[in-house]
């Protein structure tokens, strides 16, 4: 039983191998359309690659440009710094008025 299963598995594998493009055999006139197919595939792959590259470039640009959190934190810093300065100045002024 076991032997038979191994044999059938081997048979299956070898048939897969023979059907695979690796074992295409020697180049014959019949292989010309496959070259054309390959070229077409190549062209479509190249198009996809170009699309991906442009997407990567766009993504990189997006990463470089600051997001909302940076903008808001910057505005918060500005408000905070000037608020602190105003508070200190006001405190000094009221201290002068009290004395």
């Amino acid at each position, binding site marked *: 039983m076991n032997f038979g299963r191994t044999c059938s598995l081997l048979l299956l594998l070898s048939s897969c191998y023979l059907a695979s493009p690796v074992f295409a055999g020697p180049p014959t006139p019949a292989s010309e359309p496959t070259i054309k197919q390959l070229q077409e595939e190549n062209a479509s792959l190249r198009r996809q690659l170009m699309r991906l590259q442009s997407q990567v470039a766009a993504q990189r640009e997006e990463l*470089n440009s*600051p997001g909302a959190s940076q*903008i808001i934190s*910057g*505005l918060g810093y*500005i408000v905070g710094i000037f608020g602190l300065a105003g508070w200190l*100045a006001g405190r000094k002024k009221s201290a002068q008025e009290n004395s």
Partner: protein
Amino acid sequence: MHISDGVLPISVALGSGVASLAIAAWSVKQTANEDLPKVAVVTASFFVSSLIHVPLGPTSVHLLIPGLVGVLLGPAAFLAILLGLLLQSLLFQFGGLTALGANALMMGIPALLCGLLFKRLRGDTQKQHVLVGGLAGGGGTLLAAALLALLLASGGEDFFGVMKLALLAHLPVFVVEGLVSAFTVSFLFRVKPELLAQQLGAAS
């Protein structure tokens, strides 16, 4: 239009850092307490305006508004620009910390000059206000581009080559900034003309 880290020679970077600190100290002294909210608002506008991009062919340049900051703040403009640039370099990675002094000089000096120009020439009519405001807005960026070329020339770059490039790249920015400044001044003249007096506290 920011100078990045490591472009300038160390002596120039250090010298401009010291000079900008000195001008900033003078600017702080000139700022009255009553003006602080106004300075804060203009600083925030300056900080954010660099994110407004003007598309230009394959690249884009962004607004700088040194002229408008000078028109609105007068002597306090340098403080606003130094703080805005510091936050931009920390949060947006625009320019570098070692080049902060050079960047502050590049934008701050045109701002101070434009503020002075506006103060002297603004006159009384809205027309003259708008004209001088627009001129100061565009001229501020023009001066900043010239200073950029001067600073880069100290790093061994060809002055006129850089100048030509900086001027050409920012040609639309001059126009846009002139328009933005003219519009802002005209709006403020109609709505709240006392804001154009540059120093609120000094008058009282």
